[in-house]
């Protein structure tokens, strides 16, 4: 499953402190923790390598102060990295001109912010139409586009409200509509649901997955919530103290944590919600009876009820129809209760 890399960032550093660039050069571009502490520098991002592939949901997960927000701001060049290279669709994002950068942001990037960042003096309609307004699109066209987008995020009828008249969840829907109105290819979401109540957060996650199934964007999603990360991600990068500890699919993180820090996160997560049928399938026995087919990308938790109700095992089928194995109740229960399989 090799896909095009849309955004390729290699060895990106962001240091805060006096003369950060000179400091980096003086330490051959890779200062140690001790070097940083001695120079009273803060290493917000340290040697980050990230490849974001076309059409994937890439989640950057880390606790507060881990550098995840700084990293995403480096990727969108809201923050100027101290060192490193960022390649976006074949262009070096760090060396392009101001005009080109504005053009890329206008046409190819969209971003959603933790605290919504809606313009308080504009209505919902004007907020959503704002990116097009900035580009000089005429009023009729941009408002027609904005109306469409508002309908997509389920806020039809609230076009003339001002942001302060909306609930947090509704405000973030406006933020999402605004970031999508220019039909960007690359979609940044910086802790988009962290400021919302747990129930609303869940609802917005579902909404987000629904939108993504329709739009199929390439997504960089920032969160501090590990459950949210494994629920949404195709791949996750776990950050700590400015470094990326591990980049992997949720399943790999669960089954094969690279560092004790990652393991600490995964320990308390119910594995059945992460492990997919694909990973626990055993070879099909041609003589046995099967109760039916289950999709390979289904998680064990999702399939549990059906597996439990049927008298026979199920065949596991990929999206293209290929049978890759079978699951029975015994294996599923083992995953469910955390007993080691095989």
């Amino acid at each position, binding site marked *: 499953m090799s896909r095009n890399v849309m955004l390729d960032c290699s060895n990106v550093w962001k240091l805060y402190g006096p003369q950060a660039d000179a400091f980096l050069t003086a330490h051959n571009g890779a200062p140690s923790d001790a070097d940083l502490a001695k120079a009273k520098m803060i290493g917000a991002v340290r040697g980050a390598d990230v490849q974001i592939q076309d059409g994937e949901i890439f989640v950057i997960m880390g606790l507060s102060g881990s550098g995840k927000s700084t990293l995403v*701001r480096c990727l*969108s060049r*809201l923050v100027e990295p101290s060192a490193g290279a960022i390649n976006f669709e074949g262009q070096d994002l760090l060396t392009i001109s101001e005009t080109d950068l*504005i*053009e890329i*942001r*206008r*046409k190819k*990037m*969209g*971003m959603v*912010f*933790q*605290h*919504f*960042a809606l*313009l*308080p*003096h*504009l*209505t919902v309609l004007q907020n959503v139409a*704002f*990116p097009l*307004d*900035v*580009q000089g699109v005429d009023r009729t066209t941009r408002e027609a586009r904005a109306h469409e987008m508002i309908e997509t995020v389920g806020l039809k009828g609230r076009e*003339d*409200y*001002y942001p302060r008249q909306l609930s947090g969840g509704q405000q973030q829907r406006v933020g999402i509509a*605004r*970031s999508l109105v*220019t039909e960007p290819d690359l979609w*940044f979401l910086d802790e988009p649901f962290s400021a919302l109540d747990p129930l609303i957060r869940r609802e917005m996650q579902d909404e987000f997955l629904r939108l993504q199934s329709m739009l199929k964007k390439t997504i960089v999603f920032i969160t501090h919530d590990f459950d949210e990360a494994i629920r949404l991600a195709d791949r996750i990068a776990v950050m700590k103290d400015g470094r990326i500890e591990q980049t992997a699919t949720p399943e790999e993180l669960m089954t094969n944590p690279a560092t004790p820090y990652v393991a600490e996160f995964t320990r308390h997560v119910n594995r059945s919600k992460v492990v997919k049928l694909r990973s626990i399938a055993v070879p099909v026995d041609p003589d046995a009876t099967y109760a039916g087919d289950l999709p390979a990308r289904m998680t064990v938790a999702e399939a549990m009820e059906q597996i439990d109700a049927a008298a026979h095992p199920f065949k596991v089928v990929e999206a293209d129809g290929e049978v890759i194995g079978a699951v029975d109740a015994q294996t599923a229960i083992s995953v469910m209760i955390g007993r080691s399989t095989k």
Partner: protein
Amino acid sequence: MTDQVVDHPPPKGGKARWLTGGRLFWLILLAITWAASTWSFALYKALDARWIVRFPKAYQIPVDDWLSDFTKWLVEDLSFGWFTFRDITRFIASLIEAPYDLVRSLLLDGFAQGQGQQAVEIVPALSWIAIIFVFVALAKYARGWKLAALVGTCFAYLAIFGQWASAMVTLASVLIAVPIGAIGGLLLGIAAYRSVRVERLMRPVLDLMQTVPVFAYLVPILVLFGFGPVAALIATVIYAMPPMVRNTTVALQSVPEQLIEAGKMMGCKRRQLMWKVMVPAALPSIMVGVNQVIMLTLNMVIIASMIGAGGLGYDVLTSLRRLDIGGGVEAGFAIVVMAIALDRLSQAFAERQLRPQPDKSLPLPKRYPWVTATIVVVVCATLASLFIPFFRVYPIEQALTTGTIWESTIAWININFFDAIDAVKTFLLTWLLLPVKQFFGGIPWPVGIVVTGLAAGRAGGWRLGLLAAAMMTFIAATGLWNKAMITIYLTSVAVLLASVIGIPLGIWAGQNARANSVIGAIIDTLQTLPSFVYLIPVIMLFRVGDFSALIAIVLYALAPAVRYAAHGIRSIDPELIEVGKVAGCTNWQLLRRIKLPLAAPSLLLGLNQTIMLALSMLVITALVGTRDLGQEVYIALTKANVGKGIVAGLGVAFLAIIADRVVNALARQSRERLGLE
């Protein structure tokens, strides 16, 4: 900074526990100053060294002469080839004069063709009814019926009490000065926000503009632009603009970071980011700055009339000079009424909530009923004024006057309470004013310079100490030492009284919601009054002299002491107060042990503001005969002596800067001690 934090050595044997190293320093400093002040004259006689009490004339630096010569050169000799400096000032003057004439014609004079007696009116001025209606409609639009009623009453007062013509002249200058001040301040504020270098360049200029007394720059403006409304407008704009610059910069700095990032990510260019994202988002705070510009403009109304602004300010000034109590009160009250109306109106605009947009399917007049109504009233009333005199000006014979009432009231108070008032006056003079005056007046200048330097250094580091000493040396070397000491004496007594009255009031307001609403309303009104207005009743009751000046200054400088104390008490973490209650503190212990120490930084900031206001008011009280730096500036103004005015003005500014830096340093220390910074 750690070395300046007061250290607490362990108490020795239980006695003199309060005598810590820090306190000892201040005590010794005070003792030395007091000794020097008391025996300076004896010392001068004993040693026959006159230089101890007077800065030697031969060493005085004639900065004032240099400045006067420089201005003379600017005005008379400076030429850039094609044009002279004079041409530039004339050009600026004409730029301001044209719109001012336009607005004045619209509000009061009407548009005429021809000169003098032969002038033929082409278009009449707006009817007074139309003008009142416009302001009522604005108030309704900005807030609602209540404000509309208030604004309507205020403007109706101006008409009914016969102040209309003067009020319109004043309004015309407000309508010109405010947009220039607001837009200029906005642009400068944006420049300061964008470039650190501009900000660094502008900050000391703004500091100086806000601390140099207005009178001081009236003189050069008078020389450059001549006597008249234009000079008055320029002075007003210079006076009213600095807070707008500051406010804009702060407002832009407090726009949420994410909003700016959102703007960038949507592909805004620099200019789009500023004007489409940041300025609109910061608009509520920027409007607070506009409100300040309006209030400062009105504050300047009377002062500006000294260099040629007509209107209400001129009426007050002439009444004061003639000691015409009734006329002064009436015109002064008209300024207050106008200030209140414009203040509330601009505040309403600042706080206005955005409302749903009107239904676009309606025809225009129905969609905007108020705009339509206003246009109809303005056109009808003004047309009617062509034929019916009542619509043109409010009939003088029907105007009410309260002048006689005021005069008889004051006379009655003076007859019946003269003894009581005089007793208070004498008491304060004997026991407070005179001793303090003697103390400061007696300090020999060399001791004064050293002591100021040491005190400032102790509070804020050796740089501040050197700065303070240098500034005091400037004052001594320009021959202003004695007047500066009188300034310090009046200011310190006024600040003391304002704190003694204001801080308890503020503490009360901070703890009691009902007290807060009453005290808050009074303080708000006091702050709306132009500083000059305070002089009117004070002179009438106490006549001219230090005591009248003192009362006016205390009244004017009271507000920040109250406000900051209330704010300090109110912003204490409620959990800390609960801790005290759980520990079983009585109310008094709660106040003394918990609330006051925690409110200390806020109290110090209030003190700082009180000193600044007292100094600015002090200059104005020169009109009632104080013999301080303010009087020096005022004399320079009447003689159009540029150098003398600026030097004395700088003297006041230096005192203000020293006080400001020292108190701020103390406030910082106390915040550090509490771990708030």
